[in-house]
């Protein structure tokens, strides 16, 4: 069978470009799909017609779009959906296996990501309720109404949500899903190595009855990505710090970069640290350690060396397993050079005094290894003497965390901006300090994995507040 070709979707309409990229198997480089690459001008011209896409969505009520989203969720998980040109289709199992082959994620992790997306799509009502703090969907349809006895009026801040997506974690697509029910079309540049999830999601929406004009899917270059961010009044970008720094402070661009998520243990609970090794290990290693909500540092008032050793022992022995092994924890690298770079970066910083790789003694080989036909990085736990060490607050695309001793009174200043903090403490004073901390986006109080997020509580920007603004309104009787 020929290699599938994933076209660009120009406001829902398939468009095959003369320029193509290849999506390859992370193990042997076999081409699993070609993908149309369009020049930025294509996107700019389509954006001139974006009002038509929004009008198409506005023909539906929010309630109808919530129902369509739920139906799309079922189709995404189990349906056989169009894949590219020539009447080719893809079942849920095909999607799972192909995504695993190109991303390096084991089947079990792809399945978990599928389940997350399925949950998000089938619970859009719950999510919107959380995002809007309980506004009746009909108010969004009319644009105005009454909530808790007060008049409310909302207007959209944009006619399109721009998306510059990553390749490393399929579930991040769940972030944009509510925009369809909020009647805002999407203009997306998919990750270079991960067209599968967004394309399948779009096909799910269309099959569920959503107007195809609502979806712009534009594999493109840097210029195209920059234009999506520049020309959509609201956009999300995912990337490393150097990418996201470019857009920091731009109110129209929601930046999703490294999370620098952390587990903190208070003085009151530190003597019980062996009880929390499981939650620390899962925070570090679930989803292959690739998420911004994975913990990348464990901050404790004492026993840092002992905890680092215990985590090293727990995670250091983990090895790559076959992709279809249900116990697989590690993910291969779609780009082996990325694995090599991370390995080199960790080693280079370990040369600096004050840090010890506590996983090294429990590993049977090097951190970077070739296994199961691909390139993998084994988990790495680094004991750091202080937060001044360059490895103390780093995030890598693998199960990685530092363990650092910081006196409890200094912790909140020391951690810096942090996406998720799981704080293990019962100390009311410390809890109050944590609740007041402005550098924490999501706070878990108690031994809860940093990976645990709530769909009805945005942990990284509120999509409704991003896409809509409230205004004061007066109406003649």
């Amino acid at each position, binding site marked *: 069978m020929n290699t599938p070709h994933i076209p660009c979707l120009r406001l829902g309409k398939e468009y095959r*470009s*003369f*320029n193509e990229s290849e999506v390859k198997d992370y193990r042997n480089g076999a081409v699993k799909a070609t993908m149309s*690459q369009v*020049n930025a*001008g*294509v996107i700019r*011209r389509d954006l*001139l017609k974006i009002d038509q896409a929004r009008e198409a969505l506005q023909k539906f009520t929010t309630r109808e779009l919530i129902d369509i989203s739920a139906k799309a969720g079922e189709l995404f998980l189990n349906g056989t959906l169009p894949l590219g040109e020539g009447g080719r289709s893809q079942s849920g199992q095909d999607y799972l296996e192909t995504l695993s082959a190109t991303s390096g994620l084991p089947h079990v992790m792809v399945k978990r990501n599928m389940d997350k997306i399925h949950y998000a799509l089938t619970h859009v009502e719950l999510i919107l309720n959380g995002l809007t703090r309980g506004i009746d969907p009909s108010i969004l349809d009319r644009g105005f109404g009454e909530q808790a006895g007060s008049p409310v009026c909302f207007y959209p801040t944009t006619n399109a949500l721009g998306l510059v997506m990553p390749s490393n974690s399929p579930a991040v697509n769940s972030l944009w899903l509510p925009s369809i029910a909020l009647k805002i079309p999407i203009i997306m540049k998919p990750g270079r190595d991960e067209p599968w999830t967004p394309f399948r999601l779009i096909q799910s929406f269309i099959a569920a009855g959503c107007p195809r004009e609502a979806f712009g899917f534009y594999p493109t270059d840097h210029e195209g990505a920059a234009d999506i961010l520049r020309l959509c009044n609201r956009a999300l970008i995912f990337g490393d710090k150097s990418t996201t720094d470019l857009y920091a402070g731009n109110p129209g661009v929601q930046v999703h970069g490294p999370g620098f998520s952390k587990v903190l243990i208070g003085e009151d609970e530190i003597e019980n640290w062996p009880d929390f090794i499981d939650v620390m290990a899962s925070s570090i290693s679930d989803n292959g350690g690739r998420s911004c909500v994975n913990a990348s540092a464990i901050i404790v008032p004492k026993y840092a060396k002992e905890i680092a050793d215990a985590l090293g022992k727990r995670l250091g022995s983990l090895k790559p397993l076959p992709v279809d092994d249900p116990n697989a924890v590690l993910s291969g690298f779609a780009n082996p050079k990325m694995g090599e770079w991370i390995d080199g970066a960790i080693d280079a910083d370990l040369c600096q005094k004050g840090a010890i790789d506590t996983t090294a003694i429990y590993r049977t080989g090097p951190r970077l290894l070739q296994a199961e036909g691909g390139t993998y990085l084994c988990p790495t736990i680094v004991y750091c003497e202080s937060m001044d060490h360059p490895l103390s607050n780093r995030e890598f695309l693998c199960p990685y965390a530092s363990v650092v001793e910081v006196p409890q009174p200094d912790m909140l200043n020391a951690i810096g901006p942090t996406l998720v903090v799981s704080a293990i403490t019962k100390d009311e004073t410390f809890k109050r300090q944590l609740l007041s901390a402005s550098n924490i986006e999501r706070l878990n109080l108690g031994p809860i994995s940093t990976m645990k997020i709530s769909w009805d509580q945005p942990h990284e920007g509120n999509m409704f507040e991003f896409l809509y603004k409230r205004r004061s309104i007066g109406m003649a009787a």
Partner: protein
Amino acid sequence: MSIDEKVKHAADELDAHVVEMIKWHFSPDTGSPFWLDWAKEQNWDPLNEIKNFEDICQKFPNFEDEWLRDLPNEVWVPQPYKGKPFNIFETGGTTGMPKQRIGWDDFRIDYTAFSETLKDEHFPRDDYWMMVGPTGPRRLRLSIEHLANERGCSCYFVDLDPRWVKRLIASKQFDQARAYMDHAVDQALTILKHRKVSALFTTPKLLEALAERKDLIKAGIKGVFCGGTTMDKQYARFLVEEVCEGGKIGFVPTYGNTLMGLARHHPFGAENDYSIAYYAPQPRAVLRVINPDTNNTVDYDSWGRVELTTLTKEFFMPRFLERDEALRRKPWSEAPWDGVAEVRPFGAMEKNIVEGVY
């Protein structure tokens, strides 16, 4: 005449032209100081040993562009032109000294000939032109004005300095680069608003930017003559199908520079996947697509480096290696010699090349 006969005829014409030009440039009463001095330093005599174009390819080394930077312009003046003021045209120069080529009438000759390839339907006689792009010290500025004059009218100009744009992009000042492009487009739109213009010369990026802000058909534009940066198949298709609305506006891409003149394009479209092939104004200029290591032309439809030889009485430049690579294309009935297609910066697939917004 069959295409084979046409190819043979053109090759014979080229060989005869080569002999004439070698005689001109290497004879003491007509040659320039540079080539006369250069010949004295060789252990062979171009006058006796160059009998055809193949001899140029085999016996002359690659022309060194430093000569156009480092030497005074006077060394390039052929004896019969001595005392006649010349135009100085520049290319390059983003940093440091640009390459300079002097000239008298070559640009007029080249563009008069090129005018004959334009269709009146898209470039009506006696209608105004507008050039939006690099003017300044470039040959292009006078050439476009001459082209407009040749076709019976005049030309408006909006300048854009590509050296500045390249510097902005190289230093990642993308906002500034965009603002500068917007500044050029604003000026062009002002002209279009207040003056009647039917033909446009501009670069692909500026054309796109203009079309995003103005319906060019409603503005009266009938034809666009375009050049300056890479146009791969996808981009060419986009410009034809969307920016020029599927042929409602005639789209004429060209490949050219200060050192060559300009090469016309073979008709292109969906039938040949929008692959644009250019044909040099032979015999005044010759393009080869070669493997620079072997000095042999590559096979047809294979990638190689573009080599230019210019053969006019005003300027002789053998075997200059352009900074471009291209596919070698077969001769065409209207230009029965090799063409260069899908031109892109040399090494474009291996590294990022700053081409900018212009």
